[in-house]
């Protein structure tokens, strides 16, 4: 909350910093007085009453003032210093480091992902491992996969889709309904659910062919909400808010993960523990996510992948060069939806219960923010963003020590989405192009050249 920079060349203008901090404090006080200074609570007679929280208000206003001073005394001088010391253009050392990172990071991450369950069991033992593999491993990989799926639509084809969760929902409900009604197995329904999702992707893609940018985003948001509202209201089929429960779980080539005699543990002569199912599910989602990444990497080298990237850069130029933009857009929507459908049917199989609550707009925004924060079009970036955002927010559940600081009533998980929203804004301001912002050209003449960051920033997305 600082005022426009007409700052002196070097050093800190103390008077200005204090003035900024005062103004910031006053504004914070004005905004937070009704929202934090007072709390509306229901009293005994079920009427609303007010309670005051002067100390909380004082703490918040104090924090804002401190943040303003921090910006004036630390961030701004540091920025000036950096600009003065290092002129435009990246240093050679940084480039070498980045090249090494690009070369070694993917194998390393892959290795960690493959050996993650072993690692977890080694560290926490059999009893504690389920939580870490399920809540962290599987959860993060679902979002990595969704991120990579949406990355095809948003990152490669440049079509901002705010309703991606609809295809996730179509996949989940397809699996749940078909498995419950016809008793088909997970392995048959997984491709089927994907195809149904892709069908919906193309179907919803048709009407929005003419749109782009903000309007496209809002229409896809509307489609996502329509599908969710239909799931809520079409009670005969979807049982509405109640959701669908006891969805059949996937089996290991026909062997169920149960404690029965024909269960996985008994067949292989092992002691029964729910851990086997979790590990199995972990590898299924890992395989699905890697399939998404592999297909995307290969598609980028095909004419259709090149057409997507051309479309992202300039639609009019694309059309004048004879690229069929209709097909290009529809395949992007369709393939993106296909992977969303895979992820959805996996989600239904893993949870055993689905309801429209899992497919709200917030979920779409979360997947989109993972793609955007990771750097649109960058697969590694998306994976890192999913790890940081989902892992970070899941980590909030584990922060029990905060209860000792803030009191027993403190529940860190309710700040999950708050931090998510804040992170979206902050990363947009700090790095509008996402964490990994170098855009690699996939088509090049004779030799590969990296695109300088300053050109990347100029792109219109």
């Amino acid at each position, binding site marked *: 909350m600082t005022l426009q920079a007409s700052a002196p060349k070097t050093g800190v203008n103390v008077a200005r910093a204090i003035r900024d901090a005062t103004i910031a404090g006053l504004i914070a006080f004005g905004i937070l*007085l*009704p929202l934090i200074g007072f709390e509306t609570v229901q009293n005994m007679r079920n009427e609303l*009453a007010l309670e005051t929280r002067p100390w909380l208000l004082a703490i918040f206003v104090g924090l804002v003032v401190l943040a303003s001073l921090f910006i004036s005394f630390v961030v701004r001088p540091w920025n000036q210093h950096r600009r003065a010391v290092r002129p435009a253009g990246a240093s050679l050392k940084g480039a070498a480091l980045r090249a090494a990172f690009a070369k070694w990071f993917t194998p390393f991450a892959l290795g960690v992902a493959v050996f993650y369950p072993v690692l977890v069991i080694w560290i926490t033992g059999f009893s504690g491992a389920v939580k870490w593999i399920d809540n962290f491993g599987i959860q993060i990989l679902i979002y990595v996969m969704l991120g990579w799926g949406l990355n095809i639509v948003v990152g490669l084809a440049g079509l*901002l889709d705010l309703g991606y969760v609809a295809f996730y929902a179509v996949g989940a409900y397809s699996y749940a309904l078909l498995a419950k009604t016809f008793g088909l197995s997970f392995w048959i329904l997984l491709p089927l659910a994907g195809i149904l999702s892709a069908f919906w992707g193309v179907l919803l893609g048709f009407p929005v062919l003419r749109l782009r940018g903000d309007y496209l985003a809002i229409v896809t948001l*509307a489609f996502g*909400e*329509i599908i969710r*509202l239909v799931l809520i209201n079409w009670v005969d089929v979807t049982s509405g808010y109640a959701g669908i429960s006891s969805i059949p779980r996937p089996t290991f080539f026909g062997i169920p993960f149960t404690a029965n005699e024909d269960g996985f543990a008994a067949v292989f002569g092992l002691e029964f523990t729910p851990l086997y199912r979790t590990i199995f599910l972990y590898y299924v989602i890992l395989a699905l996510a890697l399939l998404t990444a592999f297909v995307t990497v290969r598609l980028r080298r095909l004419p259709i992948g090149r057409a997507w990237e051309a479309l992202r850069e300039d639609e009019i130029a694309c059309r004048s060069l004879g690229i069929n933009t209709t097909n290009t857009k529809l395949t992007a929507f369709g393939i993106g939806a296909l992977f969303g459908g895979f992820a959805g049917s996996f989600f239904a199989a893993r949870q055993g219960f689905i309801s429209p609550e899992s497919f709200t707009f917030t979920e779409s925004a979360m997947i989109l923010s993972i793609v955007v924060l990771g750097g649109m079009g960058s697969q590694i970036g998306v994976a890192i963003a999913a790890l940081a955002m989902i892992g970070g927010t899941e980590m909030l559940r584990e922060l029990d020590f905060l209860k000792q600081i803030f009191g027993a009533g403190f529940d860190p998980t309710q700040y999950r989405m708050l931090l998510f929203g804040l992170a979206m804004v902050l990363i947009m*301001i700090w790095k509008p192009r996402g964490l990994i912002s170098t855009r690699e050209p996939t088509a090049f003449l004779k030799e590969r050249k990296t695109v300088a960051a300053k050109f990347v920033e100029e792109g219109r*997305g």
Partner: protein
Amino acid sequence: MEVFIQQIINGITLGSIYGLIAIGYTMVFGIIGMVNFAHGDVFMVSTFVALVTALILATWLGISSIFLSLFVILLVGMVVTSLVSWTIERLAYRPLRGSFRLAPLISAIGMSIFLMNFVQVAQGPRNKSIPPFFQNVIVIMEREGYQVTLSYRQIIIWAVTATLLTAFWYIVTKTSLGRAQRACEQDQKMASLLGVDVDRTISMTFVIGAALAAVAGTMYLMYYGVVSFSDGFVPGIKAFTAAVLGGIGSIPGAVIGGLLIGMIETLWSAYFSLDYKDVAAFCILAIVLIFLPQGLLGRPEVEKV
């Protein structure tokens, strides 16, 4: 027929609220070409500000004059909400001006999620209800036991909306701020060369939009008597639909669009199904954006290479 008239009355009331919110969307889109996704949540914040102010006035200060308290609530709501919107623009949108095109939209989505969850954490997740302000109704028609009524609340909503729209219309057409706004809308670079402070004009646009959203928020609280942290999303989308339907960038269009959306919603609920009323709103949004993107009163956008 009676049902129809009653629904039209209800629809105009609801439509006034949507129209007031829609002006905020349409002005911001007109001037910087972004969908201010957080505007619906700014409206939600304003309902909470109004709620807290109403409770302070009623329980602590014991003010019994309804008109005085309504006036104070409106004033406080407008000031605080404007401040919120000004701050959001300053922190989340201004640094992104000149960045790639989708950056402000994504930042706005983040801000919307932040505001919603901030209010949830600060004020609790439960619905907050207050006793209704004005209970009295006027019966304007009666046939076969069915009464067509016009409540005092509805009259007040109409009157306040009409008054503020007139004031707002005066600002946009007659003052130098309004001229600066229209200049920035047409050509920001040229306007700044001619001495218009573009940053300030854009800030003022956000402030005015938020002030009108605060009026809508107060009316919403008065009309329904219940607010919740999640009340920003759907009314926000409906108001955005209204803005697009009326022609985005056009202020009279936003009001007309708001009234239309309000009437469509009430008539749909009365004659078809209550469950699918939001589906209807989203369908209208999609249909309008796809087939009539320039809206009723907007100018068609010609893209130049």
